[in-house]
């Protein structure tokens, strides 16, 4: 199939339909509105169902119901709306159901702004809702990758019976880039646990996250964490760029990773060797990759670049312990770092040594 030019939001929606997603429940919020609009237009044509719910809370609970009934289902929103969805996400994780949640992040806290941000990192990777659980978080940095990851996200969700989140930002949602859809055959695995009606002689299916007995509850969480261990073992995705002889390694994901690549080239032209570790999975975090590069003699320090006041930096620090200094450069509230400013920061860090 030929390349087409698409907005990130549209590419997510098209990829979801190609991945066999037939159910979408959402609520309008900028800057992700192209996703529900696309789904509203396309889902009826493929025998699917779209609902503009009465709230984000209802939307995620419709996802909860549809996932329990065995549907391939998703929702999308932006930061304030994702906060509202946390109740449902916790239930979905607790009841072990597969679904895709897209967060096209905007500046916050509160109503915040509508411009791109990465300040929902903690919410996405450290839990978000209540209880002991994890959500797989994928962070694309381009439109092609957004499309590819949507397709993978549904498979990961099914494989582990766990919610998967794609975290973009307003820039990735709104920008257009060429994208190609692979048009591969979709095979959706059987869901014998789904509540589709209890046939005589078969065990009854119950979708549930309630465990009043404390030992049962602990056992359930332990089972979840066995699963999370598997995910940590199998699903880490990361891109390393120019790290081989880098003296400074930037840690950045999504939009800031794109900017970092510009700056790495500019720095290279000035004889400063800078590399990039770009986590594609924010959870599971590519801890081992950070550890490996931290052990390299040529790497003198790390620089975490985020569109927030510094959230992923905590995972970078946890990964490399105190082996190398970890610096931070960030803009927040919808501001996107300028390549020139980032380059100045690199030069400053280098001067400090």
């Amino acid at each position: 199939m030929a390349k087409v030019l698409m907005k990130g939001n549209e590419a997510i929606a098209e990829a979801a339909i190609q991945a066999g997603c037939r159910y979408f429940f959402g609520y309008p919020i900028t800057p992700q509105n192209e996703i529900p609009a696309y789904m509203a237009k396309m889902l009826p044509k493929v025998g699917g169902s779209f609902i503009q719910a009465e709230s984000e809370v209802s939307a995620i609970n419709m996802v909860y119901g549809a996932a329990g009934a065995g549907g391939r289902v998703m929702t999308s929103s932006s930061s304030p709306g994702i906060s509202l969805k946390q109740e449902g996400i916790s239930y979905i994780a607790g009841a072990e159901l597969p679904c895709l949640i897209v967060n096209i992040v905007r500046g916050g806290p509160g109503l915040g702004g509508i411009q791109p941000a990465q300040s929902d990192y903690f919410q996405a990777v450290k839990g978000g809702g209540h209880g002991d659980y994890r959500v797989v978080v994928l962070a694309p940095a381009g439109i092609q990758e957004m499309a590819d990851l949507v397709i993978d996200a549904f498979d990961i969700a099914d494989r582990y019976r766990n919610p998967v989140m794609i975290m973009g930002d307003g820039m990735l949602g709104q920008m257009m880039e060429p994208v190609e859809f692979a048009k591969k055959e979709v095979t959706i695995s059987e869901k014998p646990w789904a509540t589709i009606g209890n046939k005589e002689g078969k065990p009854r299916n119950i979708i549930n996250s309630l465990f009043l007995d404390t030992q049962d509850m602990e056992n359930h969480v332990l089972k979840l964490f066995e699963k999370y261990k598997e995910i940590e073992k199998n699903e880490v995705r990361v891109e390393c760029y120019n790290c081989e002889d880098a003296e400074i390694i930037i840690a950045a994901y999504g939009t800031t990773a794109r900017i970092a690549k510009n700056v790495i080239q500019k720095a290279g032209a000035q004889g400063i060797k800078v590399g990039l570790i770009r986590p594609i999975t924010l959870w599971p975090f590519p801890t081992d990759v950070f550890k490996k590069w931290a052990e390299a003699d040529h790497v003198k320090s790390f620089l975490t670049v985020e569109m927030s006041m510094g959230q992923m930096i905590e995972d970078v620090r946890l990964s490399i312990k105190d082996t190398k200094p970890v610096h931070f450069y960030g803009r927040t509230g919808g501001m996107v770092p300028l390549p020139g400013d980032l380059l100045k920061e690199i030069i400053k860090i280098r001067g400090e040594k």
Partner: protein
Amino acid sequence: MAKVFEKPKALTGKPNHYCPGCTHGIVHRLVAEAIDDLGIRENTVGVAPVGCAVLAYEYFNVDMHEAAHGRAPAVATGIKRVLPDNVVFTYQGDGDLASIGTAEIVHAANRGEKLTTIFINNAIYGMTGGQMAPTSLLGQVTATSPYGRSAETEGHPIRMSEMLATIEGTAYVERVSLHDIKNILKAKKAIKKAFEVQIAGKGFAMVEILSTCPTNWGMAPAEALKWVKDNMIPYYPLGVKKEVV
């Protein structure tokens, strides 16, 4: 000799946790009998609420989905969209449906979702220990209205059936009571009809059932039934509020 009293197939038979004199057990049985009568047990998915009926998934012998507090109509909507040929019901109390879940119930009805909702109105929060419900009567003393519910500070009790009857997507809504045998039989009919309306694809159907909570009302079971008749029914008149034929 033919058995006259037998466990419905749509109940698991697991002993329930409800308090003595609580009418949840009766409603469970009526719902299960309706499911059996209509021969839809293998095709039904139930959505349990948060409240006293939180463990309903243990008792109904159908596939069950446990929802978050108030969200049962949204969960049921999601299920029904995936399984349009199945029968989907929610079982909700007054805190669940008439307080935290008002948005979900109103909009499920407004979309005309083909769902059946069993709404237990006992004018109190049972599970959490007798707090005021949106349906608690004026003057009713509860854990959180210790001086009696006052219209000035807590507002008036909310009449959900009348409210939902104004909605275009609602195909059937009736309020029934369980305070005597005659009314229990009426309730049984209403519940069956609420399933039939769904099966016929007419739209949203709800039965509001005036129920007792002897434990949190601080009454003996018989006294509680009398309280329904003397105090609840005058404020919550029984009958069909809307029926699309």
